[in-house]
């Protein structure tokens, strides 16, 4: 069981500590952790389970904030990690986003949330809907009220009804004047294109995100036109397993507000919407770079927010890169990013330039990997189609909205 949770800022300062069990954990563990992190170099990529001399540490890094949990005994490590992720999610949800100032400004709420979320090192209430009822999120109205009256309480004095219901994720007694439900398919395309330009791996990681504002206890059924394309699925706890097993139908009572109903994966796609062709030729201490970007398979909608990013190898002394379209930036950490946006009709975007290698090095022996970003509104590249959404238990028919979006996930082109 977890013994203590620390929140560290991006400079390693301990912002919060919450002791969970009788065995108190000294703050010095954070110092050890931070030194360990610094010594490892690539801090954001540090492994999530660390065995320190005194404790086992779990860490999750979000937006520069390190969530660090300690334990001394055997426990499922994923439980610790998932819990920290959940804490990060809930805090993001409460505070709008996540950064050092926000945490410090709202430390009381963070404490109250942590106290409600974990008891004696074991997660207690992690369902965001229930938490929202127990501890009110900070909002402008509350703040103004507290300034005016000098009196603020964000602790609810009644126990949320959902804690005792059989659908613990849903707030009870909801009433909306306008009932609406939106279903979004948000897909991310992962692809690896190897040195020879071959598409080695191409798959879609997708999420069905639902935003529901429905009164009472509605019962929803969502079915797909082609569920067979789905390779793997994971569900929100509200989804009933049986209908899915039998007919690939999602039957559920939704939580209130925005939530991730399901995530899925579609493997082995045959092609990617755009191509990126890097070429690096080096000779006599310099390396010529040229990168071409273009549309390979037109998805039917515009592809926008196209970016190409790569890390210059450490042996490169200086780089001189230009593009015929979009802007090229070289950041301090030797990251080079080329922002293209939309691909113009009249020309193919290209970036070219030279890299100067360190002295003594004739030719480049390590090659950067190009990360590609793009976004296509209105299309789910996996081909998944929502057939229909049925709603039961509702007084009047609600408004239903559907959207789709595909963006690049881990889309990599090796050179």
């Amino acid at each position: 069981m977890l013994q203590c949770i620390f929140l560290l800022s991006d400079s390693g300062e301990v912002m919060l500590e919450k002791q969970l069990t009788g065995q108190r954990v000294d703050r010095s563990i954070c110092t050890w952790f931070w030194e360990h992190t610094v010594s490892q170099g690539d801090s954001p990529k540090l492994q999530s389970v660390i065995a320190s001399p005194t404790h086992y540490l779990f860490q999750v890094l979000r937006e520069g904030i390190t969530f660090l949990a300690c334990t001394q005994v055997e426990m499922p490590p994923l439980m610790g990690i998932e819990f920290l992720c959940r804490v990060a999610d809930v805090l993001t949800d409460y505070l709008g986003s996540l950064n050092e100032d926000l945490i410090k400004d709202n430390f009381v709420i963070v404490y109250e949330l942590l106290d409600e979320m974990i008891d004696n090192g074991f997660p207690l209430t992690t369902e965001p809907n229930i938490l929202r009822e127990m501890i009110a999120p900070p909002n402008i109205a509350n703040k103004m009220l507290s300034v005016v009256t000098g009196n603020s309480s964000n602790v609810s004095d009644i126990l949320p009804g959902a804690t005792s219901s059989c659908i613990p994720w849903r707030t009870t007694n909801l009433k909306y004047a306008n009932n609406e439900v939106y279903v979004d398919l948000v897909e991310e395309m992962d692809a690896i294109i190897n040195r020879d330009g071959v598409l080695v791996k191409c798959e879609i990681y997708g999420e069905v995100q639902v935003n529901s504002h429905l009164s009472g206890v509605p019962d929803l059924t969502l079915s797909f036109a082609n569920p067979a394309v789905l390779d793997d699925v994971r569900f929100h706890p509200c989804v009933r397993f049986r209908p899915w097993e039998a007919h690939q139908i999602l039957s559920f009572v939704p939580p209130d507000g925005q939530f991730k109903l399901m995530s899925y994966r579609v493997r082995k796609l045959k092609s990617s919407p755009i191509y990126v062709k890097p070429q690096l030729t080096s000779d006599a201490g310099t390396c010529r770079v040229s990168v071409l970007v273009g549309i390979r398979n037109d998805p039917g909608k515009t592809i926008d927010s196209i970016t190409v990013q790569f890390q210059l190898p450490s042996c490169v002394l200086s780089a001189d890169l230009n593009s015929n379209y979009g802007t090229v930036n070289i950041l301090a950490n030797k990251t080079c990013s080329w922002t293209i946006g939309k691909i113009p009709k009249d020309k193919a975007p290209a970036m070219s330039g030279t890299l100067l290698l360190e002295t003594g090095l004739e030719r480049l022996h390590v090659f950067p990997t190009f990360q590609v970003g793009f976004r296509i509104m209105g299309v789910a590249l996996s081909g998944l189609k929502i057939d229909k959404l049925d709603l039961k238990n509702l007084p009047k028919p609600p408004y239903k909205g559907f959207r789709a979006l595909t963006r690049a996930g881990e889309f990599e082109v090796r050179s």
Partner: protein
Amino acid sequence: MFNQFGATAETLSKASTLVFRIGTDAHLYDDPDDVSIAPLLDSRFDSEKCEALKRLLALIAQGFEVSSFFPQVVKNVASQSLEVKKLVYLYLLHYAQKRPNEALLSINYFQKDLGDPNPLVRAWALRTMAGIRLHVIAPLVLVAAGKCARDPSVYVRKCAANALPKLHDLRLEDNTVGIEEIIGILLNDSSPCVVGAAAAAFSSVCPNNLSLIGRNYKRLCEVLPDVEEWGKIVLIGILLRYVVARHGLVKESIMFSLHGTENSRSEKDCSDTNSALDDNGDSNGLYESELTNAVSRCYIEGPAEYLSRLSFMNKDSSEFNYARFTSGKNNDDVKILLQCTSPLLWSNNSAVVLAAAGVHWIMAPTEDLKRIIKPLLFVLRSSNASKYVVLCNIQVFAKAIPSLFSRYFEDFFICSSDSYQIKALKLDILAYIATDSSISFILKEFQDYIRDPDRRFAADTVAGIGICAQRLPEMANACLEFLLALTRQQLMTGEFGSVDTEADILIQAIMSIKSIIQLDPPSHEKVIIQLVRSLTSIKVPAARAMVVWMVGEYNSLGDLIPRMLATVLKYLAGCFASEEVETKLQICNTAVKVLLGAKGNDLLTIKMVLIYVLELAKCDLNYDVRDRAHFLKKLLSTYLDSQCLEEETNRPGQHKDSSRLLAENLFGKQNKSISHEPIDHRFYLPGSLSQIVLHAAPGYEPLPKPCSLRCDDPEMDENGDPYVTDDEDSASESLDEEIASSYSSQHSNVDSSGTDGSEEAGSASEDDDNSHQLIQFSDERKNGASQSASDFGELLSNRALESWLDDQPGFSKPNTSEHSQVRTSSARISIGDIGGQVRPKSYPLLDPVNGNGLRVDYSFSSEISSISPLFICIEVSFKNCSKETMSDITLVDEESGKGKDSVEQSSFSDESSTIPQSNEPNLVSVEEITSLDPGQTMTRSIQVRFHHHLLPLKLAIYCNGKRHPIKLRPDIGYFVKALPMDVEVFTNKESQLRGMFECVRRCTFTDHIKELDKDKGDNSLVEDKFLVICRSLALKMLSNANLHLVSVDLPVAAKLDDATGLCLRFSSKILSTSAPCLITITVEGRCSEPLEMSVKVNCEETVFGLNLLNRIVNFSVEPSHPHV
């Protein structure tokens, strides 16, 4: 003039953050102590209290120590505002263990809150009460948890489950049974949420009490999908352990299949699944099956035990007997477990997925194992944070059964965003799952990886290629070719940018080549030659050493190598001096190896080279090299001497003396073909922390021994589970029964001789009548049993929330029946002149050493103050131990004059059990002793008001004008006064003060032994042993506390020496509140031995009662002062 409109974006954003920060607690975090916190805490307004508490919280958050505010914070626990309460709880939990005494002050409020109609308040109270972790209140918490386990609110029941591990952490042996019973109740709860929390409690309190699971097994399985995610993780593990312990492992699972294939390797491919596993060639299959064997044994025995056994025993011990296996197809329990865990593979929580996958890995038939693959791989993509842990587990799965993952090799292709650890894991997995069909893709990938900017990773990739080649001998040549090309390329670039990481790649490449050559040396002769020829350009010492080693190792291989040996050795000898140590050592070895294998013309050259090399080595700076040279020289002395050389050439084969044999054994071609190193991987259960850190973390337990759990109760095993109920009402009924039984085990003062009949009472009385005390007999057989039974029925009928909450005095709990049945028969005696023997104990107040010869002692007197009930009378005796006369001795209270904001005072102002705040002095002034002659003793009676029954009062004695600060320690025994009452009233009152108002502790009592021994000395008057015990007990009590002896009940037992059942009752009331305080002492054991004594205090003021109880136990245990 428009300056004020010229706001830049920066100032605007600053302003907006300012606006944004208004109303948050930002200023509190930034400057938590810019206002004085103490007055705010005492404020009448909740908002000010809140602010103060938030400031304290901010200080805690920043790592400051603010426990000094504890007393002030504690009293705010009484606040009605939930926010204040919550903040106080947060503070309390942080510091309670540091300030246990003050923390006790809050208990009353928790108790009150436990009866609050708001479930949130009840839950918080229980959580905090259990969370402050004080041994003293453990019994109270246990009772409260038991009560909350029956609470109508799911949330409260869940908190009750969470409170149990906290109790368990205190390690009070008495409570274990009680805790486990409550867990049993909660595991049986109708709400899945509670079951999850109960599972967590189970696994941390009594993970091995699997019979508790057996009762509910089927129901737990069915409820599993509805349990909340965190509970699922734990519950899955528990169910798995239960099934293994109950039914053993499954015959069709991997845990068995590979034992099967190993034991019956001749009848290969007994099933198609096995052939699928063995598709990678025989030798690998063997290796993998061995690995799986290791995996399964490790799961059951724990790696430490398994490995230690492995070291001295052959691995295929037959102790793994087949009776421990069950068939998964026929066993319902196994089937239902797999059925209920398989939908969990779709869970959103990666920990749940992994736990479910772990169950399938161990329990599922091999052909069903594939269903865990996709979910596991999907977790990799959907949760970045858990990637590393999942990969660690996949690595084990993939190593044991590579075919499972071989189809999904693309999922392990590396992304540039992966961390090094993840890259390394993926690489390892890729190398293991490569098959003939996928190897070409994987090699292609590997070639890309070698160009990765992360050179450490590139080096690992080279090693991975080596592993692939070993696993798939058909691909060895392709791999080798690639490696050689890489070596050449590396040598080229190495010339220029010679960085350490590049050297690593070269070393790895040569190492991989070496391992490929080892597979089949004869066919790779050309490779060796190629490497040897590139020796001139290989600069990295480790790589050079390896090539040199190869020369020696394969010196007689093929036709070409022997012919070039002499040249190579000459070259090596030439550059010997400039080599690194490891290369030097290898050159020595190689020269010897070559010599031993050499024939014909070269022999002489080689011998010369060797002599030359050894001579050089003897003068080397490094002592290892020197030692090696001396050793080799000694060993080969016979051959290196020239005359022996002749001899040797003349008569080859002769004179093979021992040193030659030794040398050949050492350096000869014992070309051991790749004996795969014994498997010493440590495997821990999938999903465990130990598997990630690769050592057994504290608390790690392997699976239970298969079939170690005997099912004694067949009725429970069938679905005739007595506890399974559908509606909540009847479920709670069964809960009540459980509660009752938990009480019986908690108050373990059950009389063992309780079954004695009343006719023995008569005989016992005859033994007793030689004593001069007045003895009354009273048959104490009560009809309590029947009465309490009716109570019980009533309890069941009105189980509404109101009656439940109404836990006031008069609410008789079912456990009364048990108490009333304890004493079937006893005789009541009264002890006469006990009052005269009571001698209050006196305590030193001032030592003559510190007090310039003045010795002051004090003792509490049983007199009641005439001024106010809040004052306690104390006899103080002053003695002059010095030679001079003392004068002007006074006792003063120095603190009463000070302001009342001192910490102690304000903290107790809210505590109802102590004195309300007032400005009265603490000490009624004592008349001054004008002079005290040497040796003279004077006694004064003073009256003192203590602020709290635990904290000493600071006073000062003035003597001869000098001040001596002293501390007057309160004795809680004198915070009560004797309350005369008779037995009926006593039992009546006692029955009203049960449950939370009752606390029991056990201790041993030894005083009587001395008394008995004394009596043995003068045989003239043999007193009854019982009376001696009674008297010493009563004396002990009365000398240490102001009590009234109500009754003494003698057991009427068959055995004369058995004091079990002796019961003394004392009554008193608390001075300040006049609340009655009842004390019952029950004795167990033999007269002449130390007695087991259980002291029970019934008092409305729980904290006071507890402290009094502790005091009684303390003074009962310590030996009594000698009787004068």
